[in-house]
């Protein structure tokens, strides 16, 4: 029983992290049509900024998290201006490769700035755990899950019911027509990059304390997030939460009982299985139009 509870807690935590990352890159994808492969390294960068703010600037933990999220918002905008805006009229392949390039630059920068030995990011609960049916679930994991629920709700409201959200959806539905009705393409894309990087930063500061902080922190989860987004059909922001949790469960609950050695591959197995049955993803209408 306690083993099952542990597995479910791991699955939900993983699902939350994946959801936060997937949300970030869906936001950019919908606003600009670009799949941002730097999303994972933005997660890592956010975590390192807070680590640095905590250890070197000696801020309180929560301030260091706040700083990281705000800084990531700004970095997202900078990324948009310097890595995306200059080439956005080029083919999508060019842009996607540019985001990969940005990812490598970010990672190399982190490695030089903070070396590559694994670090421990502290959590506000000092590693305390919640004892549930014999399992020990770190409070930090519960914080990750709770924050994700709040943030996903907020993003859904933002996209569903605000002018910014309408602009994003209009751009996603038809970029050309959106510009013909005056949708502020540049501003929306900057905001989308900013918000998405802030989401990445949030994911980073939250997830780092649940594991070891390394330069690979965000990269693996980003691939899973990609699988989650494809799984449900790129485009649906609400559904991606479902995809993310499904992947978390495949990895940690199924992976606990079936071939645990291979569980890091489960997200992709699940994705391929779903795509084989439903090429457009579980809820997708428009996979394949882009990417």
């Amino acid at each position, binding site marked *: 029983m306690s083993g099952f509870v542990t597995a479910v807690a791991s699955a939900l935590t993983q699902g939350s992290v994946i959801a936060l990352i997937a949300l970030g890159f869906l936001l950019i994808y919908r606003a600009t049509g670009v799949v941002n492969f730097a999303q994972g390294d933005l997660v890592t960068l956010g975590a390192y900024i807070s680590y640095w703010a905590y250890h070197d600037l000696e801020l309180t933990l929560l301030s260091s998290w706040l700083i990281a999220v705000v800084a990531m918002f700004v970095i997202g905008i900078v990324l948009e201006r310097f890595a995306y805006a200059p080439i956005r009229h080029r083919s999508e392949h060019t842009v996607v490769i540019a985001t990969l390039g940005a990812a490598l630059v970010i990672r190399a920068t982190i490695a030089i700035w903070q070396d590559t030995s694994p670090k421990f990011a502290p959590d506000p609960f000092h590693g305390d755990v919640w004892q549930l049916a014999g399992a020990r679930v770190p409070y930090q994991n519960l914080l990750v899950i709770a924050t994700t629920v709040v943030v996903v709700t907020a993003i859904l409201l933002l996209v569903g019911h605000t*002018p910014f959200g*309408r*602009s994003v*959806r*209009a751009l*996603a*539905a*038809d970029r*050309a*027509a*959106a*510009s*013909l*009705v*005056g*949708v*502020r*393409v*540049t501003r929306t894309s900057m905001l989308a990059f900013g918000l998405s990087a802030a989401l990445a930063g949030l994911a980073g500061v939250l997830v780092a304390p649940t594991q070891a902080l390394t330069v690979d922190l965000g990269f693996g989860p980003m691939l899973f997030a990609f699988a989650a987004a494809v799984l449900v059909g790129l485009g649906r922001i609400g559904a991606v939460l479902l995809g993310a949790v499904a992947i978390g469960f495949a990895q940690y609950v199924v992976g606990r009982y079936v071939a645990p050695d291979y569980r890091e591959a489960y997200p992709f197995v699940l994705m391929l299985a779903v795509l084989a049955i439903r090429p457009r993803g579980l809820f997708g209408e428009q996979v394949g139009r882009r990417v």
Partner: protein
Amino acid sequence: MLRVEGLTVHHGPVAAVVGLDLEVRPGEAVALLGANGAGKTSTLAAISRLVAATSGTVRLDGRPLGRRGADQVARLGLLHVPEGRRVFSTLTVHENLLVAGSARGRRGGGRRAGRALLDEVYDLFPMLAALRDRPGWALSGGEAQMVAIGRALMGMPRVLLLDEPSLGLAPTVVDAVYAALARIRERVPLLLVEQDSARAFELCDRAYVLRSGRLALAGTAAGLRGTPKLVAAYLT
């Protein structure tokens, strides 16, 4: 109002429009006619910056548009209802109209103005009021055309470009669309691309006829209507 000089548009190696001059004066409705592939859509797209022109200038109120992007041009009040309506499929009718309010930019557009404009659009197309919450993908061709026009109106156009608003619609629906255009025409100068020249001559003061991307004929609607054979020769 709108003046186009020496407009040349290429799609890759294909020259779609060559050295076109045209003008829309205040208070005027102008038709742009031509056979399939004559370059009508390319002309509108170049004016609204949906595609980049190879050369030529477009002036609004005498000022060149410079290097603005399509969304900036729209916010200046030069609004383009594209061929095939291009309604946002995942947005409801109402959201389609709301998002188009962006085009008012800072030319005017507090919330109150937006609401008044919405009322006017629903007043112009009463059908849409009942469809407010229907998503774009579920609209018929005629409904979508109304949304597309209504959307442009939400941006307080100073000049309105329309690309084949009657395309693929039943005659009764075309009547409804043209009735609305007749009302719009009283306030906003129009540049109308149309296959159906009879409809166009009814609505417009003047017309340009394109052939293979070049200006072939120009004149008043009344004058061109008087030479149906000549016009027909260019339109087929």
